[in-house]
């Protein structure tokens, strides 16, 4: 290949149960490439550096503006969103790996259903009404509460915080930082606070809040700058008070 190139080393895996292997691809340099657009170029001509024609690399992407969380992968050792990671900001050769904490489906595509089952485990939703219309408007929220909650509402379940967490893994019970931050968000919502106790009891069980090891890696890798460690501290206080209520009765 002539001229300046972009070199990508990609960790590939053909099936969920086959062993992984590495392949290197070179594409012509173009200004403004991000990882997704570079992978698209490779997909057009899946030719390795050795000139071997291979199956196109499989990966997931969707919104292309860092709000859907689908294109998470490990880029040069750190979990990031492929769409918002610019090639010009990276050292070459660029190493792409699937998130290591989730089962690989194929190449860079992973199965993140554990994230959603963990969100269900901690009751990360708000029951607005039942099977009938409750004829009540949305509750008012102070601008301060709204401002704080907005930070947490940006979570896109991308899995980066779980990837960086030494306490999180497929075989481990820990629900991970994102699910905890979701509990913090729902508990502080006027309607969501009705079920605060159930959520706190959920994170006081196996794999809950106390499995956090306080490395604070989560808050450093979060692509949405969500104050995950503040959420963990606030839940620490909420669970401490809940423990007192459980042991000694309500205030």
């Amino acid at each position, binding site marked *: 290949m002539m001229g300046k190139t972009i070199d990508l080393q990609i960790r590939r895996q053909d099936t969920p149960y086959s062993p992984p292997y590495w392949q290197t691809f070179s594409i012509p340099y173009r200004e403004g490439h991000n990882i997704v657009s570079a992978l698209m170029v490779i997909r057009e001509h899946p030719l390795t550096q050795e000139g071997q024609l291979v199956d196109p690399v499989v990966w997931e992407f969707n919104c292309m503006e860092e709000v859907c969380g689908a294109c998470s992968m490990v880029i040069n050792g750190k979990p990031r969103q492929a769409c918002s990671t610019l090639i010009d900001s990276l050292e070459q050769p660029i190493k792409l790996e699937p998130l290591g904490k989730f089962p690989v489906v194929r190449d860079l595509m992973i199965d993140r259903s554990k994230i959603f089952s963990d969100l269900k485990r901690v009751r990360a939703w708000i029951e607005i009404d039942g099977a009938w219309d409750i004829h009540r408007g949305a509750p008012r929220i102070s601008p301060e509460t709204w401002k704080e909650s907005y930070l947490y509402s940006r979570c896109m379940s991308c899995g980066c915080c779980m990837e960086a967490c*030494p306490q999180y893994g497929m075989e481990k019970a820990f629900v991970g930082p994102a699910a905890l931050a979701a509990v913090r968000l729902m508990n502080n919502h006027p309607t969501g606070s009705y079920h605060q106790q159930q959520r706190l*009891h959920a994170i006081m069980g196996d794999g809950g*809040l106390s499995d956090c090891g306080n490395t604070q890696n989560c808050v450093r890798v979060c692509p949405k700058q969500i104050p995950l460690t*503040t959420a963990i501290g606030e839940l620490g*206080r909420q669970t401490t008070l809940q423990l007192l209520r459980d042991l000694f009765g309500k205030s």
Partner: protein
Amino acid sequence: MRTASIDNRNFLLRRLHSLFGLLPVGGFLIFHLWENSQSRFGQLHYNEQVVGWLQSLNYLTLMEIFVIALPLLFHAGYGLVIIHGAEGNWYRYPWLHNRFYWLQRISGIGILLFLVLHVGWTRIWGIWQPEIKADLFSHMQLLLGNPVTFLLYLTGLLLAVFHLCNGLWTMAISWGLTTSVDAQRYWFYFCMLLALTLSAMGVHGMLGFIA
């Protein structure tokens, strides 16, 4: 209503593990370092005023068992259970608190090994050799006079102080004392300052035996 915090022992055990690390275990470490920092006042003062006073306390053995030994054993034992769940990422994330997460676990194991030697050489040995109890100053002088044991004690001391102070930092988040970024940062500065102070006190005490 059945509650997870009471029915599921996981949460209570973790909080007990956290609490015991500070009280009584951490508290005892601070007392122990203060107590032995008085070695500089000489053999007579140390043996009579420091060790002698402690040994004259009523119910001393009961206190040693229930205030020191059992909480320490629980903290160590459950700590080993917690360590079991960690997944290696020392190289990938070279950030301070990630490194400290690993150091906290490594120091925990290190302290446990050190304590077997330390308690064995002093308290346990003293059961069969009353001379050790009677003149602990000379016994410590002999032990710390050996550069290998001195280094071993220095390592044990620094690991214990680090483990307590970093534990104090994480404990504040776990219990919900510090939640904001600033609170966590300033509390960290305080904990590290405490680590420096306790290390200085401990080294001072060690040097007092061999000066």
